[in-house]
């Protein structure tokens, strides 16, 4: 049974390693985009696996909103030990998940100083969410925004982390095992 803090330490070190590695290989053109993709890709694979384990005994979901609520509550609690604080949608495939105290950003100092560094630490989580949704039958693009630590920017003026999910197509909810 791994303690929560182990994951946080591992995640920090992962981000640091990926960026150091990129710098040492001297491929300046690739820079941040590749690192972000790498982290996101790792998160994707883990998210797929996690959601499989997590939902194997649950009934299937009624619709997309149901899936999103599951992500906001059960999935988020399981992974980040708290719920999403706010879920908004335009009912046309875009969802905004707001986390006022994102678990992986709480170690940063409040304020604007390290705002630029924040996306590095969100890439893996975006991948997690995207992987989870992909195995639940929703093909999405997941992005994240930060305005103020430890939360991301949101629509309203309150400071929070927003995970914005653009759901492109109508999902074909197939048996998740067929995904592999």
């Amino acid at each position, binding site marked *: *049974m*791994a*303690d*929560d*803090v*182990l*994951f946080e*330490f*591992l995640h920090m*070190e*992962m981000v*640091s*390693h990926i960026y150091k590695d990129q710098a040492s290989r001297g491929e300046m053109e690739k820079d941040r985009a590749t690192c*972000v*993709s*790498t982290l*996101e890709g*790792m*998160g994707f*694979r*883990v998210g797929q*696996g*996690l959601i499989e*384990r*997590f939902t194997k005994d649950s009934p299937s979901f009624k619709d997309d909103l149901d899936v*999103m*609520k599951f992500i*906001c*509550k059960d999935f988020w*609690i*399981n*992974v980040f*030990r708290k*719920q*999403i*604080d*706010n*879920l*908004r*949608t*335009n009912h046309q495939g*875009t969802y*905004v998940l707001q986390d006022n105290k994102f678990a992986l950003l709480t170690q940063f100092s409040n304020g604007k100083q390290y*705002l*630029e560094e924040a*996306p590095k630490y*969100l*890439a893996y989580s*975006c*991948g997690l969410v*995207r992987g989870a949704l992909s195995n639940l039958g929703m093909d999405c*693009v*997941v*992005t*994240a*925004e*930060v305005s103020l630590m430890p939360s991301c*920017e949101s*629509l309203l003026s309150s400071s929070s982390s927003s995970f*914005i999910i653009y759901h492109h197509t109508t999902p074909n909810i197939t048996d998740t095992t067929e995904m592999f």
Partner: protein
Amino acid sequence: MVELLQETTTKGHQYEEETCLGQETQAMDIRLNSELFTLTYGALVTQLCKDYENDEEVNKQLDKMGYNIGVRLIEDFLARSSIGRCQDFRETADVISKVAFKMYLGITPSVTNWSPAGDELSLILESNPLVDFVELPDNHSSLVYSNLLCGVLRGALEMVQMAVDVKFAQDTLRGDNVTEIRMKFIKRIEENLPAGDE
């Protein structure tokens, strides 16, 4: 594809509030959280195998990363366990196996195979949470999958003034019955220069 944005992209969209999330926290199975760590570690090792050609290099990287984690983990450990200073290496080994491993990985390895001089020991892990769901493919036979642990132990002990050499003697992933970590005390570190990240 992922784009991480600094500016808000949600200007101009109308969003409705879905307020039915509620405040109740369901009793979640905490055990599944450990799978997050295990799966993340697996993804990390996979990525390292992709980035580096040979297993030796991956082992080295895992050790380095473990070291960087260890130098920070020790503070978390000391803060949470309020263990005082250990008198000797035996006591250190006991604390590592009974307190630290239990606290972080939920297992209690047994401390055995002491060398006659009392400076080398084995930690026998009946089960290794890192290797749940893992199988080593044939072309990675010299990969020490859990090498992060060695780095963590080394880094953590260095922060309490002990230089140790840690390596895996047996590994269930490579066909042995148990996982055995061999730890050798090298010397006491004098407090002069602070150690940095590698």
